[in-house]
């Protein structure tokens, strides 16, 4: 059950094309000046509060993209960290970014330097504050746990993809009384963040975060497109289960909707049906 190419089922190309169109059209609308709305995401309002507390206490802020491999998720996490860094640059609050993936580390160096530049404080940027600890899961965890306790961080931001080590970060952060905000696409780690952090950004709230923080038209437009895509998924689900109830779960129309090889099965049955 996997796709090597779009031809395995052209339905994939159609649905990706539709989503791309929905996203791009709405980005264009937003750029042309349409007023777009985004609902409240409580955890994100707390970012400023957490930064404020760090500044007051003079203790550092940690940002942890975890062991996220370099890719779309990592870039989104770094975009969020870049926003946070711009905020803390105004108050000269100390920061540490701890990465468990060397490529993410390299890109983070660049992004954080940029953030300080854009905030007008390039003098505050110190490459030693963006650190690569280890790409080994629990060596990384031990380093993060040690650093959080030693420096008694006041705010801890965890964004990206996390695995079993998530609770080690969150509990040590909780131990030193840090305000913690976590956002992850890894569903299996969400319960631990919910239990140990002050705020948790769940699922694709993670992708909505940068739109929420920056209110950039491109991102808000994209968000409208994403909601349309979700509506499409919901309608396909509803239509599909009704079709499956009437025609059976093995019906070609069900195969067409997402199963590799379903395209051919569907058209073959249509052509044969026409011949009868």
């Amino acid at each position: 059950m996997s796709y090597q190419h779009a031809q395995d089922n052209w339905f994939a190309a159609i649905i990706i094309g539709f989503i791309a169109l929905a996203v791009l059209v709405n980005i264009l609308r937003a750029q042309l000046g349409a007023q777009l709305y985004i609902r409240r995401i409580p955890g994100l309002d707390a970012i400023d509060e957490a930064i404020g507390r760090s500044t007051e206490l003079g203790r550092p802020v940690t940002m942890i993209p975890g062991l996220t491999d370099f890719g779309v998720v990592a870039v989104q996490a770094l975009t969020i960290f870049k926003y946070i860094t711009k905020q803390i640059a105004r108050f000269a609050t100390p920061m540490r970014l701890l990465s468990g993936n060397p490529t993410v580390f390299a890109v983070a160096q660049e992004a954080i330097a940029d953030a300080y530049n854009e905030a007008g404080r390039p003098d505050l940027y110190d490459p030693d504050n963006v650190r690569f600890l280890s790409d080994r899961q629990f060596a990384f965890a031990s380093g993060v746990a040690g650093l959080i306790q030693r420096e008694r961080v006041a705010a801890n931001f965890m964004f990206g993809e996390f695995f079993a080590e998530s609770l080690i970060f969150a509990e040590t952060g909780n131990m030193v009384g840090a305000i913690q905000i976590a956002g992850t696409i890894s569903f299996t780690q969400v319960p631990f963040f919910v239990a140990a952090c002050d705020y948790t950004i769940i699922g694709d709230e993670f992708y909505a975060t940068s739109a929420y923080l920056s209110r950039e038209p491109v991102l808000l437009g994209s968000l409208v497109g994403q909601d349309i895509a979700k509506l499409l998924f919901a309608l396909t689900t509803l239509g599909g289960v009704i079709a499956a109830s009437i025609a059976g779960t093995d019906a070609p129309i069900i195969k067409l909707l997402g199963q590799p090889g379903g395209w051919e099965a569907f058209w073959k049955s249509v052509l044969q049906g026409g011949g009868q």
Partner: protein
Amino acid sequence: MGVLTNLMAQQTIWRLPEESRVLFATLIVAGAFVLILGLIPVLQTLPPRGRRAIIVTVTFLAGLFFAAEFFLPVDWTAIFPKDDPKRNFLTPAIQPAQNVLQIIGALALGLGTFGLVRLHLRNTVQRRAQWGYSIVLLVSFVVMATFSILNTLAEKKIVERGPMLERGFSILFDYTLIQLDAAMFSLVAFYIFSAAYRAFRIRSVEASILMFTAMLVMIGVVPLGAQISPALPTIANWVLAQLNAPAQRAIEFGVGIGGLAMAIRLWLSLERGVT
């Protein structure tokens, strides 16, 4: 299509001759370094807009390659009957492209390790607070790196695997690193206890739901649960399979769509993100 594939498969132009291959290879690598690094002064003359244009173009082309390979039809047998129906003309290049990404990843590891070592060297040289621990880190790094690299080379049969290498590597890796992994991992058990104790309170509807399902499943999945009531494991499994699965799937859909939108924005450089 067939012509193109044939041309790509013409190995002779892509390969160095057998005789004095090492010499040629060394020369070409040296040349490549000079050429690519020599481009830097040229690139440096570009104005900011030109620089951005290069980055945007490179990003787009790299994305285009993988996207085109995925979207282009693979079955051309209607036009070229002899063509392999499982690949298009870009498919043979996928593996090399993945290898390129792997190589860049390995170079990034070098960069990350350099950053780590530089930080702790600075700590040591400038006698910053706690610099002793930096020495511990540097020493264990150097020792382990030596053994690990020798061990890798021994796997390639480039160096001899002596008893010294075997035993040293085993002490460092199997008896130390693996044990540290296991110890650190097992800390999660303590943390899961304190987190549950602190967080699972009947404070709000949401917190109560979280607490009750967690307790139900916790008792249902262990043998004791079956002793208390045979229905408990069934209920726990039902919650996991029927109530957890759809919630998880809805989140997955959202994450997938969000990721796709992000990928499109990145590919077309629509986002003022990290680049």
